[in-house]
């Protein structure tokens, strides 16, 4: 399960996986480490492999030839497009939220 101690979560596993693969192909454990380091969210194995097959099915990520039992995945062009659109929407949301929040901050 994707876990973070925040009371208001934003951690959609699919988004976290796509975001992790933005910096290049990674296998499962590398994705877990990258997500933990960049967001503080711990993706459990069950959660990661609940989202990964669905991303592959929708053509947003693709598997690469495996190294022993570990198989790396990379973003597809469609996956990169979806990720960019989502991050831009979040950026816009964050900018607007921060601008609105500023006056009420003590």
């Amino acid at each position, binding site marked *: 399960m994707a876990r973070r101690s925040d009371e208001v979560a934003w951690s959609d596993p699919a988004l976290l996986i796509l975001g992790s693969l933005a910096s290049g192909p990674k*296998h*499962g*454990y590398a994705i877990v480490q990258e997500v933990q380091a960049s967001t503080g969210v711990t993706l459990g*194995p069950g959660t*990661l*492999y*609940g989202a990964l097959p669905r991303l592959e*099915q929708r053509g947003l990520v693709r598997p690469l030839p495996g190294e022993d039992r*570990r198989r790396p995945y990379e973003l597809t062009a469609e996956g990169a497009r979806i990720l960019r659109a989502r991050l831009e929407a979040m950026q816009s949301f964050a900018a607007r939220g921060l601008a609105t929040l500023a006056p009420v901050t003590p």
Partner: protein
Amino acid sequence: MTPAARWALAAYPPSFRERYGEELEALVDDVTPSWRHTAGLVRGAAAAWLRPAFTGPDPTQRRMQASLTTVWAAWCAGFMLAPAIDKALLDPPGAHVDATVRRLLDVTTALWVAGWAIALTGAALVVARALVPALRARRWSVLRPLLPALVLLVVEAVGLVVLALATRSHDSRPSTTAVVVGTAWIVGLLALLVSSGLGPGATIRQLRPDVTALRLPTVLAAALSLCLAALTATASAAVVVARDATLAGALAPVAAVVIVGVVASVTATVSSARGVLALRARA
């Protein structure tokens, strides 16, 4: 890896384990073991059964294959409902077993016969189109998953004869030998049902028949799932209408087979519908 995590990994659907099993297992080995991870794996396994994702070079073939194996397993779990309810209500007939109950049981029996006809036709198609070519190519290993069911079938047939001989001379009170043989036979029957339900699925996964070979069996699987659903409905209706002393005496086993029948019917119907939809999308 903890035994609980290993058990949770084994709970994923075969189609999932075939595609992602090794890499998921590697990840579980890499992360620090915790009960949260194990709970996440259990949730993941449940989600993979309820909303399976089929990927790879031919997802339609994998979807149809999964539908076939699921419907077959569901039929093996649910078909016993008909003879079990028939025995519970008619051996001997209770006070409330009227013409309506008998008619419902007749329909249940007819659906049972029709279900077996459909199931065996579908099985014969898979044998002719996939198993026979594999055996001609000397791929004997595809028979391995079927061996437990074949051995148990012979053992159970012999056990039935022994049971008939052991009970024949004791009309009023069964001997200890007859009770022991009878109990062993029932345990063996359950093992036969489980191995018959799971073995052919493992063989089909090894055979990997193409979509053309799976087309008609997938349609037949949909018909079989409807047959199982109708059989469960009529048998359950007979139980509700009868509600007599015979049924009250066997409430727990009757409730158990009805629940198994309902779960098997729902599983088979959902899975076969997904198989047919995948087939239609491909066409």
